[in-house]
Structure formats: structure tokens, C-alpha cells
């Protein structure tokens, strides 16, 4: 059992499980966010629920943060270990001959997504924490829609968000299906997993990009 905690396979499985957890969180996040386009009142009430429900705040939120930290920390640790496994580099290495750019550069797309997460947390989470716990403002279930739309008024922020969603799509295109292989699932269902990965990995980030662009083009006029 001790080997399970320290072996290369265990580390890969931790990456896979935390990755799948984050993938499904992303889907849930998208479902809430798309309501900001089609039903602002629903967006307000769902956001308020997520922001004040004790189960979400004190159980699910810490689990989510732990999932993000574990996924990125393990990814960086594995990358360091992998780099050390080839101390003398090839003079000529034709990686494109046998593997996709996406699969060979998960660390790059992953670090960009991590940087984006920093911006995203600054934009929304830190603001939310300050609103609730530092400024101690009273509950206002109607504020979320306006606050969200206002965030996308600057073109620069919208462009950064859309570009990040593009790299997130690339990360998911390899990572999602790859997680199943790591967990030992390579069977007759694998083609279906590959197809679902393509739909999900392109569809969800595309949806997030649409929301950002939609709010940028439809600012709130007072």
C-alpha cells in the first residue's frame, strides 16, 4: 500500500482524478455562467446561493481549491521529475513525428491556465471575499449580474479571458481522455470517451468565450 502513495503510477492517478474533478467543476461553472446571458435573474439567484450556502462555502469551496492546488502542484512536480529523466538532450528531436503538440506541451497550456486562474481569482473571488468578510456588506441577491457584466467592459480583460479559454481547450483536449487511460480505462468505450472529450474540450471553453464576448458587446447602460 505504501507504494501506492509514492509511485509514478500513483502520482499520475492523482493528476487524472484531480483533473476529472476540475473538468466536471468547469461544466457546473459553465451552466451557472450561461444563465447570465439567457436569464440574468436566475444568474443572480444561483450566484447568491453559491456565495452564501454554508455547504458550498465551507465544504465544496475548500475541496475545489484543494483540487486546483493538488493538480497544479503534482503537474509541476511530475514535470521536474520528467525533465530530470533525460539530462542530456538530443541534438535533434522530432517530437512532432509521433505526438501532437498539445500532448507534448501540457505544462505550457497548464501554466497559462494557472496564470489565468490567478487573474480570475483576483477579479471575482478576492472581490467577493472582501465584499463579504472585510467590508462586511449586507447580502444583496441582485448584484451579481451587474458586477459580472462590468468586468468584461475593458477589451483587454475580455481578450485575455478568451485567449485563456483557447489554451484551456487545448489542455482539455489531451488531458480529459488521457485521464481515463491513466486510470486503466482503455477498452471499447475509449473511442466514445475520445469523442466526448473533443465535444466537451471545445464546447465548454467556446461557451465561456461566448459569454465574455457577449457581455463585452452588451454593456449595462445606466
Amino acid at each position, binding site marked *: 500500500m505504501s*507504494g501506492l502513495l509514492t509511485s509514478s503510477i500513483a502520482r499520475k492517478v492523482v493528476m487524472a482524478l484531480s483533473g476529472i474533478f476540475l473538468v466536471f467543476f468547469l461544466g457546473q461553472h459553465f451552466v451557472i455562467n450561461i444563465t447570465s446571458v439567457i436569464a440574468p435573474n436566475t444568474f443572480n439567484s444561483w450566484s447568491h446561493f453559491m456565495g452564501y450556502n454554508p455547504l458550498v462555502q465551507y465544504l465544496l469551496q475548500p475541496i475545489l481549491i484543494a483540487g486546483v492546488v493538488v493538480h497544479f502542484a503534482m503537474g509541476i512536480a511530475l514535470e521536474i*521529475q*520528467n525533465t*530530470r529523466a*533525460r539530462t542530456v538532450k538530443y541534438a*535533434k*528531436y522530432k517530437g512532432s513525428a509521433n505526438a501532437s503538440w498539445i500532448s507534448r506541451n501540457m505544462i505550457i497550456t497548464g501554466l497559462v491556465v494557472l496564470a489565468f486562474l490567478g487573474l480570475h481569482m483576483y477579479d471575482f473571488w478576492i472581490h467577493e471575499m472582501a465584499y463579504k468578510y472585510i467590508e462586511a456588506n449586507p447580502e444583496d441577491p441582485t448584484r451579481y449580474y451587474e458586477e459580472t457584466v462590468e468586468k468584461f467592459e475593458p477589451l483587454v480583460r475580455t481578450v485575455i479571458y478568451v485567449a485563456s479559454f483557447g489554451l484551456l481547450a487545448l489542455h482539455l483536449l489531451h488531458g480529459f481522455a488521457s485521464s481515463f487511460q491513466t486510470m*486503466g*480505462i482503455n477498452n471499447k468505450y475509449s473511442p466514445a470517451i475520445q469523442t466526448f472529450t473533443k465535444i466537451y474540450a471545445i464546447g465548454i471553453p467556446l461557451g465561456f468565450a461566448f459569454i465574455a464576448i457577449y457581455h463585452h458587446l452588451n454593456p449595462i447602460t445606466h
Partner: protein
Amino acid sequence: MKLTLKIWRQKDANSKGKMMDYAIDGIDGDMSFLEMMDVLNENLNNKGEEPVEFDHDCREGICGSCSLQINGEPHGPDRLVTTCQLHMRKFNDGDTITIEPFRAKAFPVIKDLIVDRTAFDRIQQAGGYISVNTSGNTQDANSIPIDKHDADDAFYSAACIGCGACVAACKNASAMLFTSAKISQYALLPQGQVEAVDRVQNMVRQMDLEGFGNCTNTGACEIECPKGISLENIARMNREYLSASVKG
């Protein structure tokens, strides 16, 4: 065919190596890559220079001795062949060909293009075997019914010749395709069940100890493997490992 060869030269394991250029002429497209190397070495011998050392044995794609990273790919640009089966017709007159040893921390260079691949032997020794009673009353193997698909899959896994191309191709220098093939060839057969739990744990432990990297599922190993060993083996190894960790 006239070629320029850029070859890694390294005196011994402790010396610093470097790429050196060699011009070669009169190469026929029907020659194998190793025959081209033979011509080069004959030329070097005739000039009183040190020949280029490289591994080879059967020259029939069976033994797994030959290696070489050719133009950035293990065993060169052809698919499902070892370097000894690679023909010079895959190259064009005037080409520059880069020839390097397989690179991995676990495969240290011994001399020139020869690397020490005994890490694979140690992984195999850690669990790649079955216990067979040979006391005189050995059971007839044909009396044990085995599903045709399992027998076929075990055979495909056992086709791994342990050349190390999977490690050489992998951007992480991972040995998971080799290790998983050697685990799979037993995991699929009834004879392999007795030591199944210890086998996968010990072989994975040894693989990690040797300093190989981790698989990130790029699939490069499967593409470059001269025997077409499938990534399914890695998934099977992971299943076996997780199951063994819970049981053992």
C-alpha cells in the same frame, strides 16, 4: 548516394561527447542503415581513425540490440522496423543524417552510440517471470484452457524486444510501455496469476528506482515501437497496479 552524417562521438562513459561530421559516398538505397554504418567504419579504419561504436546483433529485427536515434526518431523515420531493418532508400542523395544514442538518465552512454540498457534487465528481474514446477510432473501447457483473445493479446505484449525505443521517443524518457508489456504478457495468462500482485508492484518500483520519467500519454512510444506494442498495455499495468496496491 552521398550523405553527410552528424554522429555523437564519446570516448567512454566518463568523457564528454560531441557531434562530429562525416562525409560518406557510394551508399546504395538497398543497403540497411547498419550496412551504411559498416561502410563508414571501414572508411574510418582505412584512414586509421577510431570506428564508430554501435550496438547490433541479429540484424533481423528480432534481438532488440540495435538502437540509434536517427534524425530525431528512434530507429529512424520508418515505422514498425528496427534500425537494422531501416533501408537507405528512405533517405535522399545529399541528405544530412543526425545519429545519436538513445537518451535517458537511465540509459547512460558507454561509448559513442552504445548505451547501457541493463535498467530493462533489472526491471525484468524484479518480477518478469513465473514460477514453474519442473520436478518431473510438469502439467501439459495445452491442458490449461486460455481464451483466444487473451492468448493473442499476451503474445502481442510478449513481442516487445526491449530495444528501448519507447524510452528514447518519450519526451519524459518513460519506460512505461516496456514495463507494461512485460507485465501484460503474464497478467493475461493463468500461469501469471500466482505472482501477479508482487510482479506489478516490484517491476513498477524498479522502473521508478532506475530514474525513468512518467508517462504523459503522448503516444510517441506506441508510434515508434518497432513491434507496435500498444498503449493498452500501460492502461492494463495501471489497472494491475491499483488493484495490487489495494490487495497487497
